[in-house]
């Protein structure tokens, strides 16, 4: 009601500082390209980086003064800050590996960086959304920008196919989500997460549990699609394989983390009273996601497609933490997503460089003898792959450790056993790359990859440090995750 309208206070604006900075940055980038002309394209990536760093600072500033913003539509808590920082760091690493790729493909353009910034803006909203309409808006901002990114190289058939697939199926799944939101509003008369929780748990309210369960299931379809959980994972391998390599790197880490953030928030707050109804569904989905991701990855010869399936499998591990439905589970999911972001970005950074112009060398066999040509890069790749397997002293180990520990604490013994068996299977296809790199003779075809560009090198160092720090001093991050895992109902 306009009569009661009070303008938002200054501190509320500060709480959305990262979103503001990202939007302004993206807009400036698009204008700047027109003004600067062809010759200054090299300055675009550094400019985008500068905005991202500003936004990172903005997220820290916003996180120092937690609280609700804009009539409780957003809430900036430790949880939101964690995911904002995470997606922004993923954004920075993705921009670092994009510059040389775009130059190689003759596709340098401000649009690319602007789209990344806009997509991150949507994810940042998702991280702090406290209300279903904001969830929808954030999801759409994030997704639409990513649809375009997936098809960024207009003349590449694979890109076009990926973008169309992603767009059609994504819209389809989002429709389910929106339908669920509509029903929930019909039942409870609100879209605010806390109020939905209050309504569903209050003894005075009258509603049909059947209808609410159906709402929860439909919203689950939307979220599960975005995190590529079974049986809605079908698009993921095709899109991740078809999209430009740096975009795949970005898509498998940032939008997925943000989608998990909002997924966890909605189910831990709004539907926490209905746990026993949705937990079995998630259980099945988590199990199927792990199995499909890991077993399908076994048979892949295309390194991007293998990493795509691996991304599905890792979503399955995070789902295990979601099923656990506890604070420890939330913290474990947060930790896992952070460590996955680093190891995945690192692996994709190398792939981005290695595939060469027109993404010619995407076969696993193309990596034959790589260790002899680029010993350091091969060692780093090995390091990321070991982390993806979950070998101790890497972030991946503690990620899996905390996820399965939270599952055991919630008495999910069978899911834990299945998860551990799955991670054993996973070792096979990751180790295969290491074997090819170190023990196979290079063929004539390979060896096209030249020296590693500075941006990729920076991203590699950053990711390697991330994986190392999470693997050796996990408590630094876990403590933060634990403190922010208590979502206010």
């Amino acid at each position: 009601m306009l009569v009661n309208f009070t303008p938002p206070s200054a501190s509320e604006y500060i709480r959305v500082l990262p979103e503001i900075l990202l939007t302004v940055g993206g807009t400036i980038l698009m204008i700047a390209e027109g003004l600067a002309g062809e010759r200054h394209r090299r300055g675009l990536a550094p400019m985008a980086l500068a905005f991202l760093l500003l936004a990172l600072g903005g997220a820290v500033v916003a996180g120092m003064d937690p609280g609700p913003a804009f009539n409780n539509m957003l809430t900036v808590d430790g949880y939101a800050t964690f995911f904002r920082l995470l997606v922004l760091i993923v954004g920075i690493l993705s921009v670092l590996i994009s510059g040389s790729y775009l130059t190689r493909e003759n596709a340098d353009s401000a649009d690319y960086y602007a789209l990344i910034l806009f997509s991150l803006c949507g994810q940042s909203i998702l991280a702090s959304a406290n209300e279903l309409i904001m969830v929808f808006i954030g999801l759409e901002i994030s997704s639409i920008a990513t649809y375009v990114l997936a098809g960024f190289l207009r003349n590449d058939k694979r890109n076009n196919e990926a973008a169309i697939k992603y767009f059609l199926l994504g819209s389809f799944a989002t429709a389910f989500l929106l339908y669920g939101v509509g029903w929930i509003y019909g039942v409870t008369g609100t879209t605010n997460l806390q109020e939905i929780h209050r309504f569903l748990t209050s003894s005075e309210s009258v509603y049909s549990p059947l209808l609410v369960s159906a709402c929860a299931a439909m919203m689950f379809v939307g979220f599960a699609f975005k995190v590529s959980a079974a049986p809605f994972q079908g698009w993921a391998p095709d899109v991740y394989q078809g999209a430009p390599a740096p975009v795949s790197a970005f898509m498998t880490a940032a939008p997925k983390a943000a989608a998990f953030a909002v997924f966890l928030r909605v189910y831990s707050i709004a539907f926490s009273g209905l746990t026993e109804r949705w937990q079995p569904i998630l259980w099945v989905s988590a199990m199927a996601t792990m199995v499909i991701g890991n077993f399908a990855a076994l048979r892949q010869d295309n390194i991007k497609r293998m990493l795509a399936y691996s991304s599905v499998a890792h979503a399955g591990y995070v789902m295990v933490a979601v099923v656990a439905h506890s604070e420890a589970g939330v913290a474990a999911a947060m930790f896992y997503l952070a460590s996955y972001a680093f190891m995945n970005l690192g692996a994709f950074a190398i792939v981005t460089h290695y595939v060469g112009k027109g993404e010619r060398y995407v076969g696993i066999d193309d990596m034959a003898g790589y260790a002899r040509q680029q010993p350091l890069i091969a060692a780093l790749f090995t390091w990321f792959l070991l982390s993806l397997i979950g070998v101790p002293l890497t972030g991946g180990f503690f990620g899996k450790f905390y996820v399965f520990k939270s599952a055991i604490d919630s008495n999910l013994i069978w899911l834990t056993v299945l998860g551990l068996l799955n991670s054993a299977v996973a070792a096979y296809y990751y180790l295969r790359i290491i074997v090819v790199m170190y023990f196979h003779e290079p063929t004539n075809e390979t060896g096209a990859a030249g020296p590693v560009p500075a941006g990729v090198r920076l991203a590699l160092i950053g990711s390697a440090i991330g994986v190392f720090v999470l693997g050796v001093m996990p408590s630094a991050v876990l403590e933060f995750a634990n403190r922010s895992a208590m979502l206010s109902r």
Partner: protein
Amino acid sequence: MHHLWLIPFFPLAGFLVNGIFGRRFSKGLVSMVAVGSVALSFAWALKCLLALAPLETPHVERYFMWIQSGSLAIPYELSVDRLTAIMLMVVTGIGSLIHIYATGYMHDEDGFYRFFAYLNLFMFFMLTLVLANNYLLLFVGWEGVGLCSYLLIGYYFLKHSASTAGNKAFIVNRIGDFGFSLAMFLIFITFGSLDFQKVFEAAKAVPVEVSAGMMTAICLLLLVGAAGKSAQIPLYVWLPDAMEGPTPVSALIHAATMVTAGVYMVARSAAIFTKAPIAMETVAWVGLATAVMAATIGMTQFDIKKVYAYSTVSQLGYMFLALGVGAFSAGIWHVVTHAFFKALLFLGAGSVIHALHHEQDMRNMGGLRTKIPITFAVLACAWIAISGVPFTSGWYSKEAILGAVHHHSPLMYWIGVATAAVTAFYVSRSMFMTFFGEYRGHAHPHESPPVMWVPLAVLAVLSLAGGFLFNVPHILEPLFPVEHGGHDIMLEIIGSAAGLVGIGLAYVMYVASPGLPDSISSSLGGVYRLVYNKYYVDEAYDATVVRPLVSGSRTGLWQFGDVWLIDGVVNGMGGFARWIGGGVRTLQSGSIRSYAAWVVAGAVIFIIAAGAIAGSNGGLR
């Protein structure tokens, strides 16, 4: 906060800088980074200690929570008490001197930067080890120094004997580390923590009779760990072979610092050990037996570094003897003085080897007194110190140990005194063979550059006056109260006499009548061969442990276990997994229509499932 973390940080930074960029640096720059980082660390340690004095209770600094899982909480904490303070000074002080020396010694070697990167990394781990405030962090340092030791022993990795020696050291240390890990598990189970203060508080509160069994088990396992690192029976065999590494490494790692880590660890855990008398007695006997055995082997060796290697094993035995009889502060005192004179002996030996262009056999030396006088002068200081000539540093700590041992058991005392005489004998023998008589070699000896002999001179002063300057038992009094009252003049005279007798005997045999050693060794025959061949311990291990292990692994583990059982199961599972994978892959048709159909099907199934679960709970509410 005194920022203790900076002490290990400086060498770590040196390691990173030299390790990453060293290849492109000039040798001067590499040396500057390496020496500078250790010197900074020394300065910072000194500054912290002066600021923290008198440090009667431990000063603990907590940085962050390192590992947390259930009831296991391990913070990253560094702490300093007086024991750590002494170790800090020894490690950084002697470390600095040896780094300086090494810049001269290693000057013409390949991989100069690699050497200093490893050496700095070693300093980082060693400082982590002594600064750690819980067993796990100590273990990190413990493993880290083991790794660096392995890397540096195998520094000349193209030389076969060097890489085998590195492997031997690594594997033998693994056995010790396994004991240490088990000890840590038991400590955690018994006391619920790995934090030093908490564990020792709890241990002090336990009455001896209640948990003697558990305490003994913990202490014996800790002893296994210490025996591995500090080269005690039965795990001493790696140390003599470790001399394949460059001489500064032998001095720093295999004489002055790393090998004393076991002594440090046992002294650190004194609160637990004092509750386990059986374990203490074991420590004392292991130490004594090691001291005797290694000293006798030392008498028969001809490789100058091997003599000092066995001497190190023997002196470490002395330290364990001290720990075992409860004279912790005397043991640590010997760590300090031994660091001075043994580092000096090794560096001096290095100077001799350097002068003779890598000649290590003492039978090809002799008469070098006049040719390399400075080296002779400084080595002479180490010589009288280790021999226990009165008022040198070695004399103080040795008498402190022997006094305590006499208090505990006269039998042990007399064995100890005899060993002291043997010690004086073999060191004098090496000195006489090297510096006296006629020169028997062919190379042209030349004196080492100042960058090498200046550190030696500093160590020489410390070897002479170190015992007098640093009264370690007095410093450690808040930690280990001195129980054994007063000095017994009689004991001191006996101890001093033993040293002088050893020197005299060596003089008679190697200077006055040089034919004597040969006739003695041939008249002893079998006994001499037994000792000369190091009691055939390596051969015995080879026959009883190594070979059965290798052949058992080959037939049992490899052919049956690995090839047949594991490979069979794995290949079977792999085939099965790929079969499932093939099935799963057919889901991925690539067509949008089928994916959309899956979305619909999934949605329908889930809505029905949710409805069914809800339905069982009744209708409207």
